[in-house]
């Protein structure tokens, strides 16, 4: 055991990441990789179908064969033609889903690193009885030990040798390098500050959108199920049930670029290039009738031409002017109101948890 510890501790000290070893199929590491899938898939006890099918007992499953899940034609066909999920087929599918099953509706570009693929498969194997045991076991123990020792294995520094920076009051931290700032500072403002150089057309954006976004947001941005609606809703802001979308509500086009670039597609954020983001933004503007030509090209140069229709309808917080914010009023303490209190409204939902009545639920948390 002590030999083990020394071994893993030295790995930590050298900064060599255990997980880069292509042979190490580590179910624990795979659990983390699975975060990339979890937006669409559930696995484990009680797992249900989500955007994608549940993945229990995936080893030995004929592709596209769960009865209560609506697969693409392509996936069903692949199963009929004999595709069965095992270590090899999963490896190929997860590397390039759309190359391996042409026409699959799994809106996922694929895992780039071999060890991520190996680890996530090892993780899935722990929920598959028929999976070869070999896949999961041997390497996980040392990896866990590495985690435990990491916090105690700090290299000692001679206190007098520490370099004290000159900046600031407490002389703590260090200067951020331009490359580091560039890596993180991706925000974009309405005045165009922060837009990267690049471009993309409505037509390109349509293709990207169908591949990466339509599963959740719908082919026309209408939103599948309860996933967010991205288009339409014009003239509904004073209606009983307003539909707030990019076209009907959002004040600035820069927000579309910024948000898609930083947070979408859900479960695989920061995977779109600047050009792809321009193209998808152009397409979202098109879906909202803000641009009308399919060959319209959005770029850092044409961006300032775009203005969203609801822009002028936002104003600063003025709550303090409401009558109920008066501060010098002593509230009524006795015989307030007309006659005794009577019920005018009751909770419409009595059993909200665990099996609430979905149909009656109204409002949202946004």
């Amino acid at each position, binding site marked *: 055991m002590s030999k083990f510890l020394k071994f893993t501790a030295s790995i930590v000290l050298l900064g060599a990441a255990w997980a880069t070893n292509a042979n190490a199929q580590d179910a624990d590491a795979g659990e983390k990789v699975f975060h990339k899938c979890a937006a669409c898939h559930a696995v484990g006890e009680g797992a249900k179908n989500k955007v994608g099918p549940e993945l229990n007992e995936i080893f030995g499953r004929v592709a596209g064969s769960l009865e209560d899940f609506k697969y693409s034609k392509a996936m069903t066909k692949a199963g009929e033609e004999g595709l069965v999920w095992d270590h090899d087929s999963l490896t190929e599918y997860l590397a390039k889903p759309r190359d391996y099953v042409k026409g699959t509706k799994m809106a996922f570009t694929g895992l780039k690193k071999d060890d991520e693929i190996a680890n996530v498969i090892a993780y899935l194997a722990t929920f598959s009885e028929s999976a070869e045991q070999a896949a999961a076991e041997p390497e996980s123990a040392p990896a866990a030990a590495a985690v435990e020792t990491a916090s105690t294995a700090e290299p000692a520094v001679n206190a007098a040798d520490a370099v004290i920076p000159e900046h600031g009051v407490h002389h703590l931290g260090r200067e951020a390098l331009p490359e580091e700032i560039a890596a993180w500072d991706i925000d974009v403002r309405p005045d165009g500050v922060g837009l990267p150089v690049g471009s993309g057309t409505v037509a390109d954006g349509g293709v990207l959108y169908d591949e990466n976004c339509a599963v959740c947001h719908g082919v026309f941005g209408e939103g599948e199920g309860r996933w967010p609606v991205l288009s339409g809703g014009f003239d509904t802001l004073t209606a009983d049930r307003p539909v707030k979308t990019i076209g009907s*509500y*959002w004040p600035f086009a820069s*927000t579309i670029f910024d948000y898609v670039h*930083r947070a979408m597609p859900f479960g695989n954020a920061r995977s779109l290039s600047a050009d792809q983001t321009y193209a998808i933004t152009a397409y979202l503007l098109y879906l909202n009738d803000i641009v009308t030509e399919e060959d319209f090209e959005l770029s850092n140069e044409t961006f300032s031409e775009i203005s969203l229709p609801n822009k002028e309808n936002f104003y600063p917080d003025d709550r303090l002017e409401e009558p109920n914010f008066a501060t010098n009023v002593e509230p009524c303490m006795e015989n307030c109101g007309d006659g005794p209190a009577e019920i005018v409204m009751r909770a419409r939902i009595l059993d909200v948890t665990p099996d609430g009545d979905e149909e009656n639920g109204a409002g949202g948390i*946004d």
Partner: protein
Amino acid sequence: MSKQPQKDKNFVPSRRSFLQGGLTAAGGAAVAAIGGGAALAAGTPDPAITELKDWNQYSGPGVDAAPYGVPSPFEAHVVRRDVPWLTADPISSINFTPLHELDGIITPNGLCFERHHSGVAEVDPAEHRLMINGLVDKPLVFTMQDLMRFPRENRVYFLECAANSGMEWRGAQLNGCQFTHGMLHNVMYTGVRLRTLLEEAGVKPAGKWILAEGADASGMGRSIPIEKALDDCLVAFKMNGEALRPEQGYPVRLCVPGWEGNMWVKWLRRIEVGDKPWQLREETSKYTDLMPDGRARRFTWAMDVKSVITNPSPQAPITHGRGHTIITGVAWSGHGKIKRVDVSIDGGRNWQHARIDGPSLSRSLHRFYYEFNWDGSPLYLQSRAIDEQGYVQPTKDALRAARGDNSIYHNNGIQTWYLKSNGEAENVEVS
């Protein structure tokens, strides 16, 4: 044998299980439901006293049994709960603090409600950095160890999601204060003033706003005016004495005292100083308040004065029948301390002062009590808080008159529970 922990989830607001729990019987005589023991005929010796229990006789687990302690199995029903139909997916969703199970002012770490937009980021503190860039003399990068070398402070603050009670704009809907008011927690944070970090980098005179950004896959970002950033914002790494919980932003989060929870960016990795707000998705598409004329308020940051009775409430009925009774609840305001809480048992016709007990701190929960002799008749229970600025918690009707039904956020209206003569409570609105 000792009694098993309750298996049924009797404490969720299910009318069926509630009635099956025996409240219809014996008009409010003692009921076995809440740690009370079964009703006994007068003169019968209580087996809780006369019988030898396992725990009287046999030794329990040793000090090595639970290196990190957990609550008693008899408290297994005290958990955060969610409402699945609210959102498309639990990865971008919310759960609620069980306010009706708590007392005092501090929310235990494991019960603080969760809201995240791309799941709980699992961040390795050794690989976490906080960057300050933009309009500063010197852009800086801090490790967690660097952060912990700055002067620290300890502060208790409430965090309330701006959408707390947001489902109730159109009328009473959810039966339980966990669901109507549970996007709320109150925690003692340990951290470094954001001001101290900004001074380390040196804010340029043109710097009027900051952008706070998270390291999670939603890249959560909010613009905050520099005055607030230099006032009381805290960059916190401990909650209630221990490291932040992953779902609360481990290893480091921003606290923006008194302002809406969405701004308290978790997994904080970057502060940018700029001359204008960024208008990101969470301050345009979301967290803007739609008014009846179709226009919308933006930058509605402060959380207004508010209170709620936590017991009795739909998930916490009165099971002891008439007699001496305690009404309790919490009050808070983003504008400072709570000056006073009034309680009404007749739907707002007459009010009495409640008693505030425990620390009274600015922008923190306050605990109030109102003790009275319940005669067993039906009541309409309400609480109304007044803060140190003199703002009075409004009625829901007053809010609707000013804002309509569609503003989602900032519903701080007075809550009514209808207490029935069987001790059951229901979420209602009264004239």
